[in-house]
């Protein structure tokens, strides 16, 4: 082996294929003999999935593939649509801390697309938990924060390539304790300090944006006059708010309390703005009628509550109660670690609230897909949809299950067996290299030391043996 190749091997192996592991270059892949959970229809025992390019071509039994196809025998493993996490802050430069612009009350002008980091290792670890798409977003520091985006976890691609094509842009709002900064002990006190104030600040910026739009309309009417007026100043923040008023963004509103959710829905109606999803919404189970009537989803936790004052008045049954009443519910991570075990969180809704298997799995597949406006492409296993697929060794709701393989766009981007094989190889190479280095050092030492005739004498017979 050439030395340079040897040098880079360790990196190449440990970087765990920043490009697709298998199926790279193959246009056709056949997943054979799996227990297929389609979500949209009934499960297929011992079924096959034929993938052509990036899409699912066919699902059923005894599917024949072309002679060139890559065939993967699943040996009865469980197959489900790739998991979708509708609320997260990974793949951002600066981590979760970088996801908040706290310097102003309203920061609609900031955009997480500007800080995407396609090399965040959490992306790969999420794939290891069967996750294939996420919504990465601004934090909850401000009543209206920055814009977010849906990503496909195309590990090894650049940031622009990871953006979910066709997914609408989102904007983060936040109500309650966080924008109030009620847990801040240091720093300059910031308006608002009450829930009323939070809502008032949203109303105020709406009014400002209306004035801004009017100023531009007036200018455009007069700009060809003989006496040319000065144009209004461009304000990037108000331009985004104006687009919010025009309905360009999916509004993702962080809220815990029932009262503040009711109140913000009223405000939005007043301005002709539609909320898409409440984030967390732990008290949503108390106002299911209103949520359904308004038509808003809730992206929530399975059993994570009580971590602050506004997160007490709930229970682990909350998600299931809302789902059963017909509210569009998703279970999200909000955290790089929880992201890797969302299937277990889904299982909890069966124990607490009695959802069926299909209902539970919907919370991490088609429902978040609907919230993000990408259900045309992902969220179920159906012909014509993207081949975003997670393979588990047991049923994904089994407490002992493990994700074995994850595909995005028909490419295997995580393969557990291969991952461990690669680690082993890397360890072996490192060992070899270390030994080589040691030997070289020994040699150098020996040549540096002047031979002492006595020691040579005593060592000679040993060498002979």
């Amino acid at each position, binding site marked *: 082996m050439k030395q340079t190749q040897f*040098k*880079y091997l*360790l*990196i190449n192996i*440990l*970087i*765990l294929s*920043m490009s697709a592991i298998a199926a790279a270059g193959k246009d056709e892949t056949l997943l054979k003999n799996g227990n297929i959970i389609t979500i949209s229809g009934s499960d297929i025992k011992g079924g096959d999935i034929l993938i052509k390019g990036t899409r699912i071509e066919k699902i059923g039994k005894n599917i024949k593939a072309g002679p060139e196809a890559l065939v993967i025998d699943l040996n009865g493993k469980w197959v489900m649509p790739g998991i979708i996490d509708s609320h997260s802050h990974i793949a951002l*430069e*600066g981590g979760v801390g*970088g*996801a*908040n*612009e*706290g*310097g*102003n009350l309203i*920061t609609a*002008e*900031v*955009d*997480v697309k*500007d*800080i*995407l*980091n396609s*090399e*965040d*290792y959490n992306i790969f670890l999420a794939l290891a938990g069967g996750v294939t798409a996420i919504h990465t977003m*601004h934090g909850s520091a401000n009543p209206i924060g*920055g814009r977010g985006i849906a990503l496909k976890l195309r590990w090894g691609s650049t*940031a622009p390539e990871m953006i979910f094509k066709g997914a609408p842009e989102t904007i983060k709002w936040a109500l309650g304790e966080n924008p109030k900064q009620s847990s801040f002990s*240091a*720093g*300059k006190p910031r308006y608002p300090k009450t829930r009323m104030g939070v809502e008032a600040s949203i109303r105020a910026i709406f009014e400002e944006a209306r004035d801004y739009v009017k100023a531009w309309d007036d200018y455009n009417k007069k700009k060809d006059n003989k*006496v040319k007026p*000065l*144009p209004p*100043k*461009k*304000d*990037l*923040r108000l331009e985004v708010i104006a687009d919010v008023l025009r309905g360009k963004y999916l509004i993702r509103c962080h809220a815990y309390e029932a009262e503040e959710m009711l109140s913000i829905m009223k405000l939005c109606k007043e301005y002709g703005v539609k909320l898409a999803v409440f984030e967390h919404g732990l008290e949503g189970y108390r106002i299911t009628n209103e949520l359904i009537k308004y038509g808003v989803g809730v992206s929530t936790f399975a059993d994570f509550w009580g971590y602050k004052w506004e997160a007490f008045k709930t229970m682990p049954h909350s998600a299931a109660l809302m789902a059963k009443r017909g509210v569009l519910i998703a279970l999200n991570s909000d955290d790089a670690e929880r992201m890797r075990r969302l299937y277990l969180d889904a299982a909890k809704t069966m124990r607490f609230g009695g959802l069926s298997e299909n209902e539970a799995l919907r919370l991490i597949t088609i429902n978040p897909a609907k919230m993000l406006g990408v259900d045309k492409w992902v969220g179920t296993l159906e012909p014509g949809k993207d081949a975003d697929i997670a393979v588990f060794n047991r049923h994904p709701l089994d407490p002992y299950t493990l994700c074995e393989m994850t595909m995005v766009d028909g490419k295997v981007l995580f393969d557990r067996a291969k991952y461990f094989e690669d680690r082993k190889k*890397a360890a072996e190479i*490192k060992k070899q290299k270390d030994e080589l280095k040691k030997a070289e050092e020994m040699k150098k030492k020996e040549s540096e030391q002047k031979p002492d005739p006595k020691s040579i004498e005593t060592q000679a017979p040993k060498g002979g043996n």
Partner: protein
Amino acid sequence: MKRRQLCFLLLLTLLMILPAAAFSADEALHSVWAVKDCKIVIQPGRVIEKGVIIIRDGLIEYAGLNAVIPADAEIIDGAGLTAYAGFIDAFGDSILKMPEEKNDPSKMYSGDYSDKERGIAPEIKAYDFVNLTKAGITKFHKNGITAALVIPSKGIFTGQASLFSLSQTVKEKAVIFKDNLLGIGFSASSVAGYPDSLMGVIAFLKQEFADVAYYIMHTSRWENEMNGIIRPEYKAEFEEIIPFFTGKKQVVFLCRNQNDIIRAIKIGSEYKLKYLICDIGGEAFRVIPELKKSGAPVMLALGFKSPITSIYSQQGKDVRSEAERELYPSNSARLAEAGIKFAFSSYSTPEPDKFLGNIMIAVEKGLPTEKALRALTVDAAAILGVDRVLGTIESGKIANLVISQGDPLLKDSKVKYVFADGIKFDMKEKKAEGGDKPTVNVSGKWEIMVGGGMELKITLEVIQEESMLSGKMTSFYNQDEFTDGTVSGNEINLVVTANAMGITFDIYVSGVVEGDNISGTITFGALGLGSSEYTGKRIP
């Protein structure tokens, strides 16, 4: 402060009224030089095997095969030596001494942070804060560097750069181009104020440029129409930015990783700026297609560290150290291969030793020596827009040269002379001339008490390399660096050029070292304080 120290300060103050020139220790300069029989590399690739360089009044008068050597020239025998254009450090802040920022805790509660504290300081000029010291200049000279671009590097609008010829400590004379480059960084300030995040910084920059564009439009309409136009409010901040925004001058983006480079290209092309990339993170090689398409020249820092955002930094020590050993040092080689124009920056390697040392490592990783030398000379000059006066050995250009034994960047080469603005600097070798072999190692920190009625406490931090000493001296009034101290047997000798209250003067220290104890005399040159005895010991 003790009374006697007060007396000392008083003395210093009194001396300030004397003409400053009395203390200046300018190089005795001969204004005409002829270097003959020398290998002249006019620029990498264009070589005169044996030629003559004539230097007059700070400029290159002639460089070529043959010339009548002027009668008034002092001749340097260049046989066996090679002359290159003086090297250029294209981006650094190591000789910038910014005023110490006082942390005012009350601001945490008032939130009254200034624009400067928020990192918005286009008005800060490197020229005002550059600290040109003899010791500092010597450090650069030892590595053949004769010109340095100095730039403030903190915040979003970091400030304006100036290019200095490393010929003297008087910045008024040393400066070549003043305020010729504006730094733009992506680091949000650590104080609570907008913007306090990376995405906020980008949004802020976009709004700022929109505001500057509006200000330009408004001002020009006011100037042209006046009647019927509300006059614009004067904005000092925008006035500083305008020449850079309109492309009259260049901006430089400080990029901490490959993502920053993409951001810089996006903003640079969106606002049609004339821009350079400073690759602080050393990841330019990871975005070569984008860089190539942008056409932006790059200044490469030589830290060879994997940025925290990189995949190589997130999978354990082994991957990281291997990447930093094998991949990151190949940055410049990969750029050279792709035909991207670059210069080198001392930003991550403020010690010039390491700057040149790491360029040599880059050469080991496949960077052609000629390319490296181009980056240090002609390419750096072109990127900074100073190729009419620097970068090659041609008549009419500033006489900045490096003359070495053996080609520079070869392991055994030695810089013999450096010319900066036609002033000759002899590079001493590591061995003290005529001294005995050192019998002591004085490396470390020493605390000495000066007696003789002064009772002055001074700390010396010393690095000993063979028989040469360098380091810094700290006393209650200042901290100054020194180089070229010597050890002979167990005796040390060093000179510190100190700067206190605007006065520059030399302090001579000689002493005898025994174990961890030292004693000797200290002389405050030109201060009329005479010599005093001191004793001291090595402290941990």
